[in-house]
Every structure is written in C-alpha cells, then in structure tokens.
C-alpha cells in the first residue's frame, strides 16, 4: 500500500487520465478525484485528502488557480504552478527560451492592433499570428501579406477578450510537412513523434498524424534543455526543423499523449505515475 494519496485534478477522463488511474491502481496508490468543475477552494485547507496533486485540467485558468491553491495548502504539485503559468503563455515561454539560449522562432509582441501591423512588418511576411494563451492551434492565423494582416487584426480586435488585442507575431518557419513532439519527464527524454500534416498546423488535435522519430541525440538534448528551462516536470516540447536547424516553439504543461503512446508504445502514464510517486516522497 502506498504511503501517499494522489489527487487527480481533471476536467474529463480522456484515455490519458484513464491510463493514469489504471497505473496508480496497479501500484496500490489511492487516488482522490478532484474534478475541476466541482472542487471549491477555501483560503484555509479543508477537506482535501491528497498529498500530491497531478494536474490534468484542460482549462488553463482552472489549472492556474487550482495549482496555486493546492500549493498554498502545502501539497506538492505536478506540474508546479510556476511551470504551468509560464508554459500556458506563449509570450512568457518565448522570453524564457530566449533567456536560456534555446533556439526559438523569431518573435515580436505587440500590445495594440496598430502596433501589430508594425510587428508584422518587423517579422516579415509570411508570418504567424497566435493568441498568447491557447492551444490545439486554435485561432492561429498564417498571414501572407499586409492586406490580409489588416483584415485578421480587425477581426481579432472585434473579439471581446482583451487577450485578443495582444499580438504574438512569429516568423513563418518553412519546415517539412511535420513538426516534432517530444515528451520529457523530470529532465529525461521519454519519447518523440513527428506530427505530420499537409496543412501548416500539425497539431494531432487538428488531425495531424503521428509517426515515430528515430533516435536523435540532437532532438533529445534540445527537448530536455527546453523542459528544464521552463522549470521541469512532465512536459511536451514542440520543435520544428527550420532551414537553420531545430527550433523550439512551444512547451506544453499538461500534455495529451494518446498519439505518442500509439506510435511509440511507450507507457507514458506509468512513467508519469512513477515520477509523481518520486516527487511525493522527496
């Protein structure tokens, strides 16, 4: 029997969460389910039985507040609030990657629609416009020229959220029709796949397909460096093969791994649960 209780903070049970629950059960680890749409958070700890919380919430906002509360209650967390806060914001991630000397696409940020046009001119066309917070390639736009830029910026500006008036402008990286997703746990490379798509967004959530990546010390080393730069834990690093070599464009803090498991056969859920157990005992 385990000497700790694992809290699973989650939105829904996808295959990933089901595998995590199975791996915990196989190791005799008691699990307290913490659905992110039901848990309430008093300022003083009350009722949470867990010793460590694994965040699997799909909502960035719920993840942030939930983790901050769990840490406030004195619980250990995977991933930590600071890591999720950084990885969930593309601007903060880019700054951190640049500070750590990790190759990343050329990026310019603008805080108003007017400045966004200047930022696009600085980056040069074609460029990619991304919301600073968001995932699965949602609301991203490839911008081919200034006319298109003006139209897209007008549309974004019309969206109510102030976050849509912050513009993250990135060079369009002419890459093969694939990018690389590399999973890292506690500073160790675990598995990587190519995500292939004829469209420019290769997210498997968008229908990109996974293919195995052969052993590549270069990918493995860069993925580990990027994961450690953002604070470490269980992370998925997204890389592109640019004409000048590998670049890291994103680090995901609550990765899905269904495709990675299907393509590589690596039991990520088991490795995550083993990592969480180790953190719980540190």
């Amino acid at each position, binding site marked *: 029997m385990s000497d700790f209780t694992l809290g699973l903070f989650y939105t829904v*049970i996808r295959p990933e969460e089901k595998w995590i629950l199975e791996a915990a059960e196989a190791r005799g680890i008691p699990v307290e389910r913490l659905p992110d749409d039901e848990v309430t958070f008093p300022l003083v700890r009350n009722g949470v039985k867990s010793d460590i919380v694994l965040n699997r919430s799909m*909502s960035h906002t719920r993840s942030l507040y939930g983790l901050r509360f769990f840490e406030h209650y004195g619980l250990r967390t995977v991933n930590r609030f600071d890591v999720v806060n950084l990885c969930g914001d593309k601007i903060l991630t880019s700054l951190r990657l640049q500070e750590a000397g990790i190759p990343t696409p050329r990026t310019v940020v603008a805080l108003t629609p007017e400045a966004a046009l200047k930022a696009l001119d600085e980056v040069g066309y074609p460029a990619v416009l991304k919301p600073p917070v968001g995932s699965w390639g949602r609301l991203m736009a490839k911008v081919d020229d200034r006319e298109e830029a003006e139209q897209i910026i007008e549309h974004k500006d019309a969206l109510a959220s102030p976050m849509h008036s912050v513009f993250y402008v990135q060079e369009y990286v002419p890459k093969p029709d694939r990018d690389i997703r590399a999973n890292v746990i506690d500073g160790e490379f675990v598995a990587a796949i190519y995500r292939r798509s004829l469209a420019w967004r290769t997210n498997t959530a968008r229908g990109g397909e996974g293919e195995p990546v052969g052993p590549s010390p270069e990918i493995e080393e860069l993925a580990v460096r990027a994961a450690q730069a953002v604070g470490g834990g269980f992370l998925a690093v997204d890389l592109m093969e640019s004409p000048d070599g590998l670049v890291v464009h994103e680090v995901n803090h609550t990765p899905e791994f269904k495709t990675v498991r299907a393509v590589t056969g690596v039991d990520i859920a088991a490795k995550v649960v083993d990592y969480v157990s180790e953190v719980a005992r540190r």
Partner: protein
Amino acid sequence: MTQCPECEAHVERKDMIMGEVFSCPDCGTELEVTATEPFTVAYAPREEEDWGE
C-alpha cells in the same frame, strides 16, 4: 444500458468509468459518463477558449 441524449441510440457502459468521455457509437456526439450505477450519460463539456494542453 442508457440512451444517447442526442440521437437516443442505446449506449452500453462496457468498461467505462465515472467521468470518461466517449463518442456515441451511432451519431458521434461527445458524451460523458455521469454515473456508473445506474449507468447515465450526458453531453460532454464543450471546449472553452482556454482549453488545451
């Protein structure tokens, strides 16, 4: 056995657990297991703007 709230097709629990999301085998609507004994399902939560990984 229960029914899909969208198309009323019969849905079986099989080895599904509380909270699990799945697609209705008939109409493909995303559903969530809301109870196992007795087995009930509801529409899965809709993707929100800050959802991701």
